[in-house]
């Protein structure tokens, strides 16, 4: 039989494939089962806010691994150094960690993209915060904590822009908008403002800035703190034309901490955020790191 060599070569290939897959499987099982017993006492996770979650169930025993963007942006993180505790999200992260029973020395920072935060499989972080807006669709696939900040949307335009002086959404219909891909700001443009022309979409603020310079768009939409920062420091000659009321068009932009779907830590993080919201710490951090945005003009929705 001359068929056998070909087949004989196939059989080991399949067997090897099966072995590799099986090996991956047993590896995962082993690590996850060893995590649980070791983690319980090592972290001292019996902090004030244990809630109904398990504060000790972190990926590395006794250490809380927190992720943010690369780079992390002002005013959320100052100078791209989240370890310093400077900047609103950095400060909130340390406050939440403290409530969960992790002191500053037990907090480790890592960087991820948005995609890494939602990809299946083992995560390299316990908590991830980089202005993730809480939405029901996203909650199907990842866990969100309770919100740690609620932001309005705001418009940034160059001087003399078609958006200048707008006081209602109706004034904005003819404006050519730009926004960052995948942000609530983009959804806000298409769902609430509904301009006559389709908005342009960019990877980041830098793209929106270049498009303003290139006269390709009239205005860009960001969350308020980002808008203020972008207009003051990044886009020369631009200003915040106005902000929308928090519940404009029924879309509030509430930022939550992202956790792996069904993470045992979620309840614990929620309890921590509730605690620092109730005792006023969260507000204090907001007034320390974020400007007072009350003075920005408001654009009404009707």
């Amino acid at each position, binding site marked *: 039989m001359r*068929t056998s060599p*070909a*087949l004989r070569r*196939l059989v080991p290939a*399949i067997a090897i*494939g*099966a072995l590799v*897959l099986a090996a*991956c*499987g047993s590896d*995962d*099982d082993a690590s996850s089962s060893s995590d649980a017993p070791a983690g319980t006492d090592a972290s001292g996770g019996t902090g004030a806010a244990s809630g109904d979650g398990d504060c000790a169930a972190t990926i590395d025993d006794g250490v809380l691994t927190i992720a943010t963007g690369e780079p992390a942006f002002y005013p959320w993180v100052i100078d791209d150094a989240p370890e310093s505790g400077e900047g609103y999200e950095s400060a909130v992260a340390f406050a939440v960690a403290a409530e969960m029973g992790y002191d500053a020395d037990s907090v480790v920072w890592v960087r991820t993209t*948005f*995609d890494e*935060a*939602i*990809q*299946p*499989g083992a995560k390299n972080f316990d908590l991830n915060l980089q202005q993730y807006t809480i*939405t029901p*669709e*996203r909650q*199907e*696939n*990842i866990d969100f904590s309770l919100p740690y900040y609620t932001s309005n949307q705001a418009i940034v335009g160059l001087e003399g822009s078609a958006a200048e002086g707008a006081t209602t959404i109706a004034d904005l219909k003819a404006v*050519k908008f*730009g926004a960052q*891909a*995948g*942000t609530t700001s*983009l*959804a806000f443009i298409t769902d609430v403002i509904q301009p006559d022309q*389709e*908005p*342009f*979409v*960019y*990877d980041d603020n830098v*793209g929106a800035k*270049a*498009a303003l*310079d*290139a*006269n*390709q*768009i009239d205005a860009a939409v960001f969350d308020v703190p980002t808008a203020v920062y972008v207009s003051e420091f990044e886009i020369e000659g631009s200003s915040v034309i106005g902000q929308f009321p928090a519940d404009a068009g029924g879309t509030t932009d509430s930022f939550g901490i992202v956790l792996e779907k069904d993470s045992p830590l979620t309840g614990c993080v929620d309890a921590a955020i509730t605690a620092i919201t109730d005792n006023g710490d969260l507000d204090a951090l907001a007034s320390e790191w974020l400007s007072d945005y009350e003075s920005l003009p408001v654009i009404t929705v009707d």
Partner: protein
Amino acid sequence: MTEQHAGHQPTRREVYDRARRRRSITIATISTVVVIGALLVLIPLTPGWEKVQQAFFDGDVFVDTLPILVEAFWVDVKILVWSTPPILIVALLVALARNTRSPALFPLRAFAVVYTDVLRGIPVILLVYLIGFGVPALGLSRTWANPLIWGSVTLVLSYSAYVAEVIRAGIDSVHESQRAGARSLGMTNHQTMQTVILPQAFRRIVPPMMNSFVSLQKDVALVSLIGPVEILRQAGIEKAKYANFTPYVAASLIFLAMTIPCTRLADWALARQRAKTGATAIS
């Protein structure tokens, strides 16, 4: 010559060939079934399969996003359709410029060399940013600053440089004796190129040209970097909306629906060319 008649006894050669053929088909079938079966059985056994399935193959997200993605795909198709003719024209001009032989035309040849070297050497993504944001920033009106225009211009510049090299290779592949023969018949350089060299060259470069075309179909998505929302960008937006990668899978399927027919067309062109030139396929 008894083989010519119906109902003849098959020769030993025919019996042997038929047996070989049957054996090949059997082996191909078995190996295909075994490999696909192993994949179908083994992958779902992996511990992370359920999560992967949820992240990449979510039926609800697929159904919700597919129509939006198909609509966004028309932007890609439009860019492809209006970019392809200028690419071919510019590429042909550059290839011909490079093939000129008159000493007086040296600057033209030099330009063609620089054109292909530079535009082929710079990553398309960088050219898209540079031309898409840079040129309009010089002070163009809103109509002329449109990123669709400058994105398309970028694709034409970059791909015409690639295709020019393909055409040049095609021209070079026509044996020098063809040129010599044509010239000895009294044809001018121009006539030689137009009626002798190019027809032969083009027949040979159809497959590599299809290759470039398929590649262009995918690079059209790079135009989205400077603003226009086409399928890949729309998929990214939907991905962020659902925190799920299924829209990318849907977008891939839409791309395949275009590229696979193109690839088959290229294969067919290649097969037809082989048949014409008399080469026999060895199996």
